[in-house]
């Protein structure tokens, strides 16, 4: 009861905070960052269901998001964007018939058709269904594979889905490389994504602690044991895959709406990689972790722009030196703390030496023309994400949260790691041979064996 109230209160607080942000000036950057966190959070939580809870590495999430994006875009495209000259490759049939507005009016549901928000709910739902159907089609044959073979198959599926919209036949529905532009952005605004995320979080946390969720985790831990306990492997795997694809489709639709456009470059393999970094950073298998990781990764992407500003070249040399030297210092510190010998290995000398050399070069040639010229480090953010992922994989594979979830009990509940007085008494009783004859017999058994 208290916990539910706390949850409600914090959701209300978050909503209030968002409301205050929307009414104040100069917060558009923060708001779009939040919107992105919500959209990517949905995708990350859904990927987490397969990669974390089910323990299957899936690399095709961008394909499902792409399906969701395209379906939402086609269904929601307003009438004035459906003119022939704007949509050259789109076939007339698709332009005239794939229109949610028309469908609803055809069914006599003008009331719904007049409200763009209600239409969006339906469009997102259909987008999710389309992605889920695809997930079912893709998952059913491929989920009997395991490990990296399955990863490659999902990767291949995702890439096929990315490549197909550009081909002539499929372009009749996707408008080819031009993409679909002019999607109304309602669903991509902060409130929509906020409530969508709330729903997704509610759904996935319910799922995680349901019998299905436990079955998924059983499959992750040991397939054979899970099967022996009566878990239907194929059914549960396909179910998880389909659910995940559904929400990937929804998040794709939200993202397309946020961008007002969708094309094949919107959902490339980098999307999956990005989500992978997010959920690995947060902790594979933890919904809280997926959200935390997404927040960090999106913030790096949105506010990491300063990394790619033009700077004089010596800044690059200097920061390279700083990175190398601090890596050197950090690893030496770790090795000292862990009492590893030798404290400094050859590779550390190389690292430190390179850092010093860079520092020296920067100091010696600080007024040379090639040192003062302006350079721009494009792609630093992606490189940073890649480095983060590699470091997580090497040093902390469980991520920030591990598999733990946030709960109010964690904050307000009794400490479970410190025994209570009652437990202490029980322990004392159990370990006292005079009061507990069972202990003695056990000891005798051990001695005779």
């Amino acid at each position, binding site marked *: 009861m208290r916990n539910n109230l706390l949850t409600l209160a914090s959701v209300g607080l978050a909503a209030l905070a968002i409301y205050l942000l929307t009414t104040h000036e100069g917060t558009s950057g923060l708001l779009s960052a939040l919107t992105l966190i919500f959209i990517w959070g949905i995708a990350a939580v859904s990927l987490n269901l397969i990669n974390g809870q089910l323990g299957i590495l899936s690399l095709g999430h961008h394909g499902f998001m792409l399906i969701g994006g395209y379906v939402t875009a086609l269904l929601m495209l307003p009438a004035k964007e459906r003119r022939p000259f704007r949509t050259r490759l789109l076939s007339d049939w698709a332009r005239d018939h794939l229109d949610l507005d028309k469908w609803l009016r055809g069914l006599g549901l003008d009331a719904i058709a007049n409200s763009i928000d209600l239409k969006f709910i339906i469009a997102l739902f259909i987008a999710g269904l389309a992605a889920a159907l695809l997930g079912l089609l893709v998952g059913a044959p*491929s989920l009997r*594979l395991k490990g*990296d*073979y399955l990863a490659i198959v999902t990767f291949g599926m995702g*890439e096929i889905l990315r490549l197909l919209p550009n081909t002539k036949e499929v372009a009749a529905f996707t408008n080819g490389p031009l993409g679909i532009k002019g999607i109304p952005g309602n669903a991509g605004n902060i409130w929509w994504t906020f409530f969508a995320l709330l729903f997704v979080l509610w759904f996935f946390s319910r799922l995680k602690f349901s019998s299905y969720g436990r079955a998924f985790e059983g499959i992750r831990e040991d397939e054979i044991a899970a099967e022996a306990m009566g878990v239907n492997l194929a059914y549960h795997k396909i179910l998880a895959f389909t659910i995940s694809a559904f929400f990937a489709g929804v998040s794709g639709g939200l993202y397309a709406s946020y961008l007002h456009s969708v094309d094949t470059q919107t959902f490339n393999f980098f999307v999956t*990689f990005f989500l992978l970094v997010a959920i690995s950073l947060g902790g594979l298998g933890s919904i809280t972790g997926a959200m935390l990781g997404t927040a960090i990764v999106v913030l790096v992407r949105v506010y990491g722009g300063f990394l790619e500003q033009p700077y004089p070249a010596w800044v690059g040399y200097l920061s390279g030196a700083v990175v190398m030297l601090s890596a050197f210092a950090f690893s030496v510190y770790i090795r000292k703390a862990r009492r590893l010998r030798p404290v400094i290995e050859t*590779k550390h000398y190389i690292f430190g030496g390179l850092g010093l050399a860079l520092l020296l070069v920067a100091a010696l040639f600080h007024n040379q023309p090639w040192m003062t010229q302006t350079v721009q480090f494009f792609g630093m953010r992606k*490189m940073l994400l*890649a480095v983060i992922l590699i470091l997580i994989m090497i040093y902390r594979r469980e991520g920030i949260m591990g598999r733990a979830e946030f709960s109010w009990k964690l904050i307000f509940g009794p400490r479970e790691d410190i025994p209570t007085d009652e437990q202490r008494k029980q322990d004392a009783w159990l370990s006292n041979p005079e009061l507990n004859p069972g202990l003695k017999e056990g000891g005798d058994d051990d001695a005779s064996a």
Partner: protein
Amino acid sequence: MTASKNPSRSTIISLLVGAVFVVLLGWRIASLENYTFARIIQDFLNALTLGSLYALIALGYTMVYGIIRLINFAHGEIFMLGAYFAFYAMTLTPLNWAVSLLITIILGGAVMLVLRSLFNLEEPKRTFVLALLIFAGTFFLLTFRKLGWIEALALSMLATGTAGVLLEAIAYRPLRGAPRESMLITAIAASFFLQNLGQLLFGARVRGFNAETVLNKPLSFHIGQETVYFTGILVVVPLVTAVLLWVLNLFVSKTKLGKAMRATAQDAEVAQMMGVNVNQVIALTFFIGSIMAAAAGVMYAIRFGQIHPLMGLMPGIKAFTAAVIGGIGSLPGAVLGGLLLGFIEIYVVSLFPTLSAYRDVFAFVLLILILLFRPSGLVGEDLTEKV
């Protein structure tokens, strides 16, 4: 033995599929009017070249997978690095002697470090001679004249091999014994890192790769009334590939290190107990794979005349497909798969011009079909996880 007497069902099925394929192909060729014998030859040359390039890259994938069961996603980027190293070796030379000395020290030092860790260079005298050769050779090559493509190829192979070993040492070695999914994720991250590093260091734009050699001169010969046009590179690529394969085969089958490699591929733990330095063997595998990728990269650049930091993406994936088709983990399989994929790609586009937009899709479809229905590939052993 029994397999040869009683061919298994899957063998029969694949033979049947192959036969149907050949019949369909013949029918299509007969039905196309302008598809003459000369064009078949022309396509054959193109396919052979492309297939050899895929085979060279696929070797790196298949060797690494055979040894540590890792799909080295970053292999395509190693291929890209090879092309860029050769590009800079050809365009920036002759260098100022001071710069050349600096590069020689860095490159030579790295190569020597790597070579020392790869081979058991215990004798100081031999090591010294080798070091002298490498340092003097690199310095001499970089300082005095503009490099031709062969010298650039050699330099690039050395540098790329070193890069491959460094990649293994930095990103993959700390994960030895980790779950395979973690290693795969790391490989993907390494691939992204190298792509973006390439864009940062080399610039994102497409550069012309103008190797001014006889290889690029258009040649032609006649078949009856028809003329077949080709360039030297179309002949050289398969030849270089064949030579490299022959050397690799000798190395793996005849030398002690090759034996250690095969032992590690069979069972790393037991090999270690038998005194094989497994880390060394794995690094060596990366070295050889990267050398092959560099050779492929340089020849790919000469063949298509341009390079850019993302050039490794598609060839990498297709070469991986080739390795899977052949049976990942098997060396002859990689070559077979590479050639097969090259032929399929060229002939499909040539015979069915309307399908040319699906060219890249085909590779993925083939990859998925093979993984779903015959994960062991054409000649490979079954490496799917067994419990």
